[in-house]
C-alpha cells in the first residue's frame, strides 16, 4: 500500500509540474526579460547585471588612465562624478577639484599607508606629476600635453570589455575611439569601433560627433565630417533626453562653426556660433570669434 501511495504522489507532482511548464512556456517566450533570446553569451549568463560589470570596467579604464590614483566610494569627490578620460568631461577647475580627494592624512596609519598605493595624481603617458592641465575652449587637452608614448593603450582592454558587456554606453566607444586615433594612430580601428557603437546605439549624436572628428581631423574629409555632424545635430534636437548634456552639444556646434569657418561658409559659421554663444561659459572668446567671422564675411571671398 505504501509504495502505491508514494508512486501516486510522485505522479501527481509530476503532472502538476508538466502542466505548469506547459502553461508558462508561451508566456516566457514572449517575456522581455527572457535572456535566452539574446545571442550574446554574456547577456544570457549575466542578464542585466552585466551593466554593473560594464560600469566597473569603465571606471577601471579611468583608473588606469590615472595610473591607479583614483577615488573609492569612501573618498570625497565632486558631485558630478564624471570620468575625465580624454578630458571628454570636466573642465580644468573640476578636474583639479576632483584630483585631491585624498586630502591630508587623518592619522599616522593613514600617512603610512599612502606609501603602499598610488597617492599622486598622474595620467598615462605623462612622466612627472603635472601641475596644471591646459585645456582649450572645447574642453580638449592641448597637443603639448599629449604624452605620445602609447601608454594610453593600457585603457583599451577595459573599454573593450565594458563595451562587450554593455553596448549601450556611448561614452565607452567615444573614449576608446579618441585614444585610438589621437595617441595610437589607429584611425581605422577607431572608426570601426564607433560604427559598432552606432549599431548598438542608432543615431547617438555623441558617437556621431566623434565619428565626425575622425573625418575632420584624421581623414581630412570635410564634407563627410559636415554631414555626420549635421546628422548629429538633428538627432540631438530630436532626442528626448534632457538638456543637461551641454558640453557635447557645445563641442558639436563649435566644430561645425570651425569647419564652416575654414570652408569660408561664414553665414553657416555665424549660425553655429550663435548657438555656441548661448550655451558656452566662455562668452568673451566666442564673441571675439563671432566678430572675426563677421569681419571675414564683410571682406568677402
Amino acid at each position, binding site marked *: 500500500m505504501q509504495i502505491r501511495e508514494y508512486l501516486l504522489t510522485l505522479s501527481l507532482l509530476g503532472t502538476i509540474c508538466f502542466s505548469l511548464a506547459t502553461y508558462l512556456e508561451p508566456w516566457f517566450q514572449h517575456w522581455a526579460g527572457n535572456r535566452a533570446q539574446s545571442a550574446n553569451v554574456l547577456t544570457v549568463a549575466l542578464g542585466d547585471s552585466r551593466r554593473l560589470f560594464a560600469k566597473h570596467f569603465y571606471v577601471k579604464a579611468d583608473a*588606469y588612465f590615472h*595610473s591607479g590614483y583614483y577615488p573609492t566610494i569612501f*573618498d570625497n569627490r565632486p558631485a558630478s562624478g564624471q570620468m575625465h578620460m580624454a578630458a571628454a568631461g570636466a573642465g580644468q577647475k573640476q578636474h583639479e577639484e576632483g584630483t585631491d580627494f585624498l586630502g591630508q592624512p587623518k592619522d599616522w596609519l593613514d600617512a603610512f599607508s599612502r606609501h*603602499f598605493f598610488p597617492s599622486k595624481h598622474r595620467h598615462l603617458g605623462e612622466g612627472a606629476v603635472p601641475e596644471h592641465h591646459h585645456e582649450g575652449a572645447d574642453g580638449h587637452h592641448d597637443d603639448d600635453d599629449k604624452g605620445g608614448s602609447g601608454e594610453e*593603450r593600457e585603457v*583599451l582592454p577595459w573599454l573593450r570589455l565594458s563595451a562587450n558587456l554593455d553596448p549601450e554606453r556611448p561614452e565607452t566607444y567615444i573614449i576608446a575611439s579618441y585614444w585610438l586615433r589621437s595617441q595610437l594612430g*589607429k584611425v581605422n580601428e577607431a572608426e570601426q569601433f564607433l560604427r559598432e557603437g552606432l549599431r548598438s546605439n542608432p543615431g547617438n549624436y555623441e558617437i556621431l560627433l566623434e565619428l565626425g572628428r575622425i573625418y575632420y581631423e584624421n581623414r581630412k574629409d570635410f564634407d563627410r565630417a559636415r554631414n555626420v555632424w549635421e546628422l548629429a545635430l538633428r538627432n540631438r534636437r530630436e532626442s528626448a533626453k534632457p538638456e543637461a548634456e551641454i558640453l557635447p552639444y557645445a563641442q558639436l556646434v563649435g566644430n561645425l562653426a570651425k569647419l564652416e569657418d575654414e570652408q569660408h561658409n561664414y553665414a553657416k559659421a555665424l549660425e553655429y556660433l550663435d548657438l555656441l554663444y548661448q550655451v558656452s561659459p566662455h562668452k568673451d572668446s566666442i564673441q571675439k570669434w563671432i566678430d572675426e567671422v563677421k569681419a571675414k564675411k564683410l571682406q568677402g571671398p
Partner: protein
Amino acid sequence: MNSAPSLTPSAPLPPETKTGTPTPAGRASTLIAAQFETQAAVRQGSAWTNIQAIAGVVIKELYRRKDFYVLFILTALITLALGSARFFGEDGSVRYLKEICLLLIWIAGLVIAITTTARQIPAERENRTIFPLLAKPVTRQHLVLGKFFGCWLACGLALLVFYFFFGVISAVREHDWSPGAYFQILTLHWFLLGIIVAMTLLGSIVFAAPSSNSTITLLVAVGILLLGRHLNTLALQLAAPAQQIVYAIYFTIPHLELFDVRDLVIHNLGTIPWLIWCGALGYAAAYSAIFLGAACLLFRRKALN
C-alpha cells in the same frame, strides 16, 4: 635499600656492580643524572629543531597535495589565454594582464594559506597523529610554531613560483622589469600571508571545524583588504559611540591592505622607500607574533581529543 640519589647535576653517580656492568638501578640513576646534565643544553637546541622538523612535514604535505599545482596551472592558463588576446589590433597592452595575473596570484595565495593552515591542528587531533608527536619531547608551543613556520614557508615557496611566472610574463610583454619592485611585492605578500597563517592557526584552535575557520578567516581577510583603509573615513561620518567603536576597530585590526602594492607594480610606479618597507615587515611580524602568542596560550589548556 639505597636512598634515592640527589637529583642535582653535581650528584655523584651510584656505584656500578662488581662485574663492571651497570645494574638496571644503576642504569636508571645514570640516566637521571645524565638527564639533568643535558637538560639545559637540550632545551635550548631542541625547540628550534622540533619547530624545523614539524615545519618540514607541513611543507612536504603541501607539495604532495594537488591544491598548489591546480591553482598554479589555473593561474598560468588564464594568464596565458588572456595574454594572447589582442584589443583593436594592439598587442602592447600589459597592465591589464599584470592586474589579472596578480589578482589570481592573490586569490591563490589566500586559498593556499587559509586552507592549508586551517586543517593543520584539527587534522592532527582528528587523525590522532598529535599523540605520538606530543609523546616525544615536543611541547604544544613547538607544535603551533612548527605549523606556523611550515605553512608560512610553504606559502613563500608557492609565491616564489607564482611571482617568477608573473615576472617572466611581464618582462616578455613590457621588455623591462623592475627587480626592486618585484622583490618588494613578493616579500610584502609573503609577510601578509604570515599574518593570515597566524590568524588561521588561532582560529583553528578556537573553532572546531576547519571549514568554519576557513570561511571566517577568509571573510575577515577580504573585509580588511577592502575596507580597512576606509574605516577612519567611515568613523568620521558616525556619531558616538559608533564612532569610537569603529575607531577602535580601525586601530586594532591588522591592516592587511598595507601589503597590497599591486597597483604600484601594475602602473610601474617604482619602489616603496626601503625603510617604509622594513616598517611594514616589522608590522606584519608584530601582528603574527600576537596571533601566535594567543594561539599558544589557548592551545596550552585545550583537550587533545
